[in-house]
């Protein structure tokens, strides 16, 4: 687990902006008879104007996870602003913000203390200014609803009356946080910012950017993973009305397929530039290309899975507690099962796109990126630019799920804009998106449990073999990454535990996918626990609770400890919520899984029915979540629903296959995700406590697949050891 906030960031973002900025700046007023408001900048995150409007900067990319609302809510809370007088402005990429990425469910974890500190510091100077003006002791003043209040007398002064004085006062070094029970914004149902433009078509995503002189482009990439460039006939393409140019995208000229360890460059291909996106699409379709695939492995997913299975016997030990060999020898029985998960694509609704205006003095970029820093680094590496020659705007993003951690499409666009000498908007087709994703790695898991005569587990061995997202991108010289974390559950809970990794090198492009490694390991671990419960004729929840043991802090790695009590609490609660102990009609079944992720604790129960044709229907999902303080219940619930649905969709349908080196799937007809009619009823409850807020965008996803598979077992007696479920013949 990462620590909370980097000290330097903390100082930069919570101290006053540089001297010059402190001077107020006049805003042009829309109503001409009204004098313009003067804006006072207190820190890089907070401005207040003389009309009482508070402008808060949303620093992280908004991919639908709600950070543009939730982080400003924390700032506003500590400041004591009135939420209906808050304007939220999206930041561009700027090194001052650091950690300006979206991923790993980290936004709240990394920013909770930071936002509170930044808000509290400005609150403090407003209070000091009011103290002088009102002639009241600082200790008797507080802020709320955009005012500094003196509770005893009922006197109050609005923020706007204090600005001139307040900006003269240096921001304090140390501040006190508001007590949680005094919160007025955090923890309330707050509709997200931008709702109006999200329902009237006015929101400009990156794909909607339009610049003067801009031309449109698309790409046709070599479908073979790690393939080369090609030779082509573009006669028909050039005959398409509106086609302007055809440009080769050759990564050899820019450092190859990788531009750093684990950082992918762009994929080889050909771009068509035109005066509309449609003309570019049509032109690309008409290209006749002979690709050079000399260096490529031309793999198939079946062949790769075979190699992963073979690699189970050639591993490195990633964690070793106690003595697994001894435990296996002493056990009354050893039980073994192998689980497999496929490659997955991300398919965010907004296809890959980017707009770049590559000018002599400045490379200006509008990108749907979860990782602007990687984008900046990529431009520096590819073009030898200086950081100050790069400006990256962060428009709202139509979904990320990890895909936009990689910036290949932005590199394509920069090359094109530079070549064309004008702004270029590049849009990939959905087909290119699916064929050239950085996929969730497929993997094979061999689990072995050593048990005494009562089914108590004394030894646990988990071997994972696959091509790693950390090393698959190149072939030579890099240290093997591992796909199994040393804190993978149940590390710390079992005295004799061994986690091993078998690494296979592949050309298939791999990357982060929502919940990263957990999306695969959770399926193996929590399906296996269900198997053990069945083997020992125990109720799965009873068995799991015994497996966890008493509520306590379980040391896992270094200072990272696992609060077993919090996991137990969500398990017990979901047991009630789902009526776990009640009986179900024949053909129905309930499955359970519970897990910790990104600091949060989640327990899920899924209820299914299957008909005699083997069709699974998910009747309901019950989930209990302990993520500490819930910042915005509306957004939090949405994240939980979305993550569970993602987990279920992947479990039921998600599968990318590779044949002769190329991805087989191409669009939503053969890469299926759940539709509205399949959306099960979800009952979601949050545990209320005062603990620091933790991640939520990913943790509800991993338990969904094992809970579903366990439910199918309960309903049919059929064990699912290989995802997706659509490939399994089910019948009662």
């Amino acid at each position, binding site marked *: 687990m990462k620590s909370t906030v980097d000290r330097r960031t903390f100082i930069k973002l919570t101290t006053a902006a540089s001297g010059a900025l402190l001077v107020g700046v006049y805003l042009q007023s829309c109503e001409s008879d009204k004098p313009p408001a003067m804006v006072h900048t207190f820190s890089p995150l907070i401005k207040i104007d003389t009309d009482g409007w508070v402008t808060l900067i949303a620093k992280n990319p908004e991919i*639908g996870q*709600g950070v543009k609302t939730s982080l400003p809510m924390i700032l506003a809370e500590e400041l004591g602003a009135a939420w209906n007088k808050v304007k939220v402005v999206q930041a561009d990429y700027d090194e001052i913000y650091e950690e300006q990425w979206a991923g790993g469910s980290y936004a709240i974890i990394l920013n909770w203390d930071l936002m509170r500190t930044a808000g509290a510091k400005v609150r403090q100077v407003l209070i000091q200014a009011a103290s002088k003006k009102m002639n009241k002791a600082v200790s008797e003043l507080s802020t709320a609803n955009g005012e500094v209040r003196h509770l005893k007398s009922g006197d109050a002064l609005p923020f706007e009356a204090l600005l001139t004085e307040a900006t003269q006062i240096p921001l304090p070094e140390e501040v006190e946080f508001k007590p949680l029970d005094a919160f007025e914004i955090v923890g309330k149902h707050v509709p997200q910012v931008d709702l109006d433009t999200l329902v009237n078509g006015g929101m400009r995503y990156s794909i909607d950017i339009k610049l003067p002189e801009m031309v449109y482009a698309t790409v046709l990439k070599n479908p073979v993973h790690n393939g080369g460039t090609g030779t082509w006939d573009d006669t028909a393409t050039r005959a398409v009305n509106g086609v302007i140019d055809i440009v080769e995208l050759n990564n050899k000229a820019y450092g190859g397929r990788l531009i750093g360890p684990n950082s992918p460059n762009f994929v080889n291909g050909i771009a068509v530039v035109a005066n509309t996106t449609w003309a570019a699409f049509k032109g690309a379709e008409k290209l006749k290309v002979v690709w050079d695939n000399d260096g490529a492995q031309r793999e198939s997913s079946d062949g790769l899975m075979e190699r992963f299975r073979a690699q189970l016997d050639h591993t490195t030990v990633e964690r070793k507690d106690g003595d697994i060999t001894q435990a296996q020898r002493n056990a009354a029985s050893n039980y073994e099962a192998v689980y497999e998960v496929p490659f997955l694509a991300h398919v965010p609704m907004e296809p890959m796109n980017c707009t770049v205006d590559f000018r002599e003095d400045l490379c200006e970029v509008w990108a749907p990126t979860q990782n602007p820093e990687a984008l900046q680094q990529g431009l520096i590496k590819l073009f030898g630019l200086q950081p100050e020659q790069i400006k990256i705007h962060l428009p709202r993003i139509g979904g990320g799920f990890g895909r936009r951690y990689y910036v290949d499409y932005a590199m394509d666009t920069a090359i094109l804009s530079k070549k064309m000498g004008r702004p270029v908007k590049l849009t990939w087709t959905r087909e290119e998106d699916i064929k050239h994703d950085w996929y969730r790695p497929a993997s094979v898991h061999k689990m072995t449990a050593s048990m005494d005569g009562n089914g108590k587990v004394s030894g646990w061995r988990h071997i994972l073999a696959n091509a790693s997202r950390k090393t698959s991108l190149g072939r030579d010289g890099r240290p093997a990454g591992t796909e199994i974390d040393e804190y993978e559950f149940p590390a710390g809970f079992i005295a004799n535990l061994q986690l091993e990794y078998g690494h296979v090198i592949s050309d298939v492009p791999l990357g982060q996918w929502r919940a990263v490694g957990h999306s695969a390991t959770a399926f193996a671990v929590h399906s296996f626990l269900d198997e053990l419960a069945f083997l020992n004729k125990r109720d799965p929840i009873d068995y799991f609770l015994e497996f966890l043991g008493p509520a306590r802090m379980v040391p896992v790695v270094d200072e990272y400890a696992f609060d077993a009590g919090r996991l137990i609490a969500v398990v017990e609660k979901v047991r009630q919520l789902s009526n776990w102990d009640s009986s179900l009609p024949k053909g129905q079944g309930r499955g359970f899984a519970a897990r910790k992720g990104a600091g949060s604790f989640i327990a899920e129960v899924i209820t299914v029915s299957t008909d005699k044709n083997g069709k699974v229907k998910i009747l309901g999902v019950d989930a209990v979540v302990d993520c500490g303080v819930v910042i915005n219940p509306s957004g939090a619930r949405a994240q939980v629903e979305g993550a569970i649905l993602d987990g279920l969709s992947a479990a039921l349908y998600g599968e990318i296959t590779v044949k002769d080196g190329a991805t087989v799937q191409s*669009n939503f007809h053969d890469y299926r995700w759940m539709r509205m009619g399949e959306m099960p009823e979800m009952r979601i409850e949050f545990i209320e406590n005062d603990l620091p807020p933790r991640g939520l965008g990913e943790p509800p996803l991993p338990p969904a697949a094992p809970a579903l598979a366990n439910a199918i077992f309960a309903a049919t007696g059929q064990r699912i050891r290989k995802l997706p479920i659509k490939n399994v013949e089910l019948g009662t």
Partner: protein
Amino acid sequence: MPSYTLRINNVKKTVSTDPDTPLLWVLRDLLDLTGTKFGCGKGLCGACTVQYKGNPVRSCTLAISSALEGDILTIEGLSPKEDHPVQRAWVELDVPQCGYCQSGQIMEAAALLSKNENLTDNDINAAMEGHICRCGTYSRIRKAIHLAAGKLEK
């Protein structure tokens, strides 16, 4: 290139483009009506849904030369101040996550409600089947459609 006159959101617009150009790209690239979104280009996801003659259509597969006979309504023209009952319900229930699919969902829902206000969950599921929301906002969408139906009755 031939030139075509379309009636979009009650305004006549003339554009020059090839006859096979999908309405989606006419809206987005030629008329800067970017509220209508590109998701798949093959009629598989619903992101590009607009109304043509009052019916929901996938603008990514509707050639401009086939869209000349009737009114085209896009998300930008649904209501002057995002106060269509569907939009109000969407706001009230805080439906969007990333929001990218929502223009298409709203245009489909508005067309559905204009024909039938007494909707069961199954009616809604059937009508919305062609729309993917990758963020998983389905349950809020369904609730919002019921809510909007209630607003219409009043």
